[in-house]
């Protein structure tokens, strides 16, 4: 427990507190009056209102579109299912700079909707909402679908035998079992859309602003640190509340359900209705998720003979001190380091959280570990700058800062993946081993490890994919001679000229493929109980 607490205290709580204090304290006096001042501004209230309602609508829309998908992925067997499940997860880990660009090809001018019906959604709130569905589809499919696949279908069948209609059987048997998972997924989507940054900035244009975007503007552009500090605190409170509710639903979910191996519940669709459902979901996935990604690939191939890809190996562009292709190596090595840190810290935290003698305080820590997902990257980045600047913690120019920041985002995924599996380990097994004289380390190695090994690999894979795509914090601290893939893409997009644009598309495609491969490997490792992701 001590290690994860220390990690979060030093690399998260302290930097964030430092930058907030910097905003609210000048010459040794606190200006807490700023809080009411900022809250009284109509602009700020407008931002709060927009942040909340767009998150609510985005969440509802995501559930509406993704729940049928969750069902199909859970219950149907069809060729290419594993690949497709990896593909729908790719958007979740791709940097928004890239996807925003591709998404415009769907809903913007000359996009599919434009060509079919003359409908353009760019710079409307609809573009934001649809993009949120695009990004969070996988959260619902993986969280809800994962559980759905393991619900014993015989329970519903039994209800039908007893005379319940199909709808009634579903409503009274399956729905109650699924409800906590749906609630947990909905809250995660709400959290991600509430703190949405890139999507809103790129697709919403300057008229729409979420709290996160406003914090970025106040910190990075306007340099009004006190307003940024107040906004950060508001977001902190809101995210804390969301996470508290989330933790509560997750605990409720861990009630005993009759779970079976996912492989026995899925079968080929039967009858016109089921085929139509499968078809409908596949079309939705194709149009909403695969098409925008395909646009990126197509644009990256727009030069004869893989010209853009070949250009990646030369440093003539001048944007970097190194050929852009080296970003792949940088990204991979940073992600490996970040994954090691995340698995170590997250694993220790998960073990501590499942200990029988874990008190209320420790269980509360569960929710705290998720906080980095809801605190703006610019706050953490600026916090790092002013708090980790003195020995022994002068890390500002050290390469380790990047994996540390990425691990902050990876840890919550590790904890969420490991917890359910660890909780499922029968305590009596551990006790028996101890009684027979095994040391605690040996108990862990002989009892826990074999059972959690696969979950550990999956957690590592997810932390790896998330680290690869992390942009917000990395862009702040990545050294110029070691840009990561997302950072390199953003820099290339920041320059005029065909080659720069083409190389950005080529690098995005590479990032997409690396993420997809990592996720596909995960699919192979999926266990019966894979936690939430």
């Amino acid at each position, binding site marked *: 427990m001590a290690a994860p607490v220390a990690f979060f205290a030093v690399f998260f709580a302290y930097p964030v507190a430092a930058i907030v204090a910097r905003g609210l304290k000048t010459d040794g006096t606190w200006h807490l009056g700023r809080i009411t001042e900022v809250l009284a501004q109509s602009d700020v209230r407008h931002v709060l209102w927009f942040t909340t309602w767009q998150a609510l609508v985005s969440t509802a829309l995501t559930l509406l579109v993704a729940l049928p998908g969750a069902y199909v992925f859970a219950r149907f067997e069809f060729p290419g299912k594993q690949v497709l499940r990896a593909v729908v997860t790719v958007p979740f880990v791709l940097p928004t700079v890239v996807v925003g660009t591709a998404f415009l090809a769907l809903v913007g001018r000359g996009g599919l909707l434009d060509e079919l019906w003359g409908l353009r959604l760019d710079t409307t709130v609809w573009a934001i909402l649809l993009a949120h569905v695009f990004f969070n589809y996988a959260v619902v499919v993986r969280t809800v679908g994962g559980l759905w696949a393991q619900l014993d279908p015989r329970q519903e069948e039994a209800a039908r035998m007893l005379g319940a209609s199909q709808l009634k059987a579903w409503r009274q048997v399956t729905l109650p079992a699924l409800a906590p998972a749906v609630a947990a997924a909905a809250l995660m989507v709400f959290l991600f859309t509430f703190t949405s940054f890139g999507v809103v900035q790129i697709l919403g244009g300057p008229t729409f602003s979420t709290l996160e975007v406003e914090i970025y503007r106040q910190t*990075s552009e306007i340099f009004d640190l006190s307003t940024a500090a107040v906004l950060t605190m508001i977001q902190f409170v809101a995210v804390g509340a969301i996470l508290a509710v989330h933790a509560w639903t997750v605990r409720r979910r861990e009630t005993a359900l009759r779970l079976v191996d996912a492989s026995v519940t899925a079968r080929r669709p039967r009858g016109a209705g089921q085929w139509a459902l499968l078809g409908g979901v596949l079309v939705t996935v194709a149009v909403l998720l695969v098409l925008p990604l395909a646009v990126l690939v197509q644009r990256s191939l727009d030069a004869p003979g893989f010209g853009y890809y070949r250009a990646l190996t030369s440093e003539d562009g*001048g944007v970097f001190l190194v050929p852009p292709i080296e970003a792949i190596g940088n990204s991979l090595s940073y992600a490996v380091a970040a994954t090691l840190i995340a698995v170590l810290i997250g694993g220790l935290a998960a073990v501590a959280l499942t200990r029988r003698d874990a008190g209320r305080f420790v269980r509360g820590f569960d929710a705290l570990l998720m906080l980095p997902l809801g605190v703006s990257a610019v706050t953490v980045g600026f916090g790092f700058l002013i708090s980790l600047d003195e020995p022994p913690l002068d890390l500002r120019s050290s390469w380790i800062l990047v994996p540390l920041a990425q691990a902050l985002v990876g840890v919550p995924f590790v904890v969420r993946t490991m917890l359910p599996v660890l909780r499922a380990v029968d305590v009596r097994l551990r006790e028996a081993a101890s009684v027979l004289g095994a040391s605690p380390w040996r108990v862990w190695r002989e009892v826990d490890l074999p059972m959690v090994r696969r979950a550990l690999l999956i957690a590592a894979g997810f932390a790896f994919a998330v680290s690869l795509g992390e942009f917000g914090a990395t862009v702040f601290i990545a050294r110029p001679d070691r840009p990561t893939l997302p950072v390199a893409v953003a820099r290339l997009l920041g320059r005029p000229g065909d080659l*720069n644009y083409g190389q950005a598309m080529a690098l995005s495609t590479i990032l997409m493929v690396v993420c997809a491969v990592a996720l596909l490997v995960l699919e192979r490792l999926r266990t019966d109980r894979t936690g939430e992701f």
Partner: protein
Amino acid sequence: MAGALAACGSSDGGQGSGDSKTVTLVSHDSWAASKDVIAAFEKQSGYKVDVLKDGDAGQAVNKAILTKDNPQGDVFFGVDNTLLSRALDNGLFQPYEPKGSDQIKAEYRVDQDKHRVTPIDTGDICVNYDKKYFADHKLEPPKSFDDLVEPRYKNLLVTENASASSPGLGFLLGTAAKYGDDGWEGYWKKLKANGVKVVDGWEQAYNEEFSGSAGGKKAKGDRPLVVSYASSPPAEVVFADPKPGTAPTGVAEGTCFRQVEYAGLLANAGNSKGGKALLDFLVSRKFQEDMPLNMFVYPVTEGVQVPPEFVKYGPQAKDPETMDPAKIAGHRDQWVKSWTSLVLK
């Protein structure tokens, strides 16, 4: 795995204060210089140059201010006239007049009594136009701010959010310089009525909306006018393969606002001796000549040749709008606020 990690760590260390053999330059993402030019400086001065690119221009300045008591480097390059007063008011720099400063053109010099900053390069923020669009439509491209509000250019212009983007702010300042404190709001009302579109950043405006850029063509951008830089047309030629005979875009010369970028010795620089040598180098002929094709900006010293692409495709505006940094400092926040409620709401 271990190899990858070791590779990560290999360039660690030797940065920042304490090490007198290394001089660290803090800059924004657009910093670029030829390897051999840097190598020549390293050889001649005996210092190794470390570069820290710190986000976009605004972000880099803000970060430098936040860390000024314990700076990340010795020299900061890339504060422009729109942000200069924020840097000076916060005591970011210490005085130093580089050798060769007398070669800098008088029009770019500021802070002459204290020498806290030195001008290094200049560039113009101007409306760019898509040559093909105007040829196809047999329409003259606009030449001036006045032209942009003409009905024949309705719904053609895209610009950036002045509160979030430096070309967006530059364009706003250009109109404020042209039409004055009392006139610029009226001008923007007309511009809004004429269908100007505002997006958040330069990337969106230029790569997505502008029909003349390489990215915009692929994204089917439909706005033939965009607020960008006078050096964007030469960039469209230089970063193309094969190189086109002429630039696909042009510059509306009467819509330009001049940006000047400065560098200075950071107040608490660990290696101020090395920092001074680096500043001398930035105004030297060798560096000034190398700059244009790396950062797509113009030199500020007398008698430096600019590359032919610049003369041909991105000539410097003859009579750009300018504004005193002190005036920008005094009005920027209020102007951006008024602009936001006028144009975005």
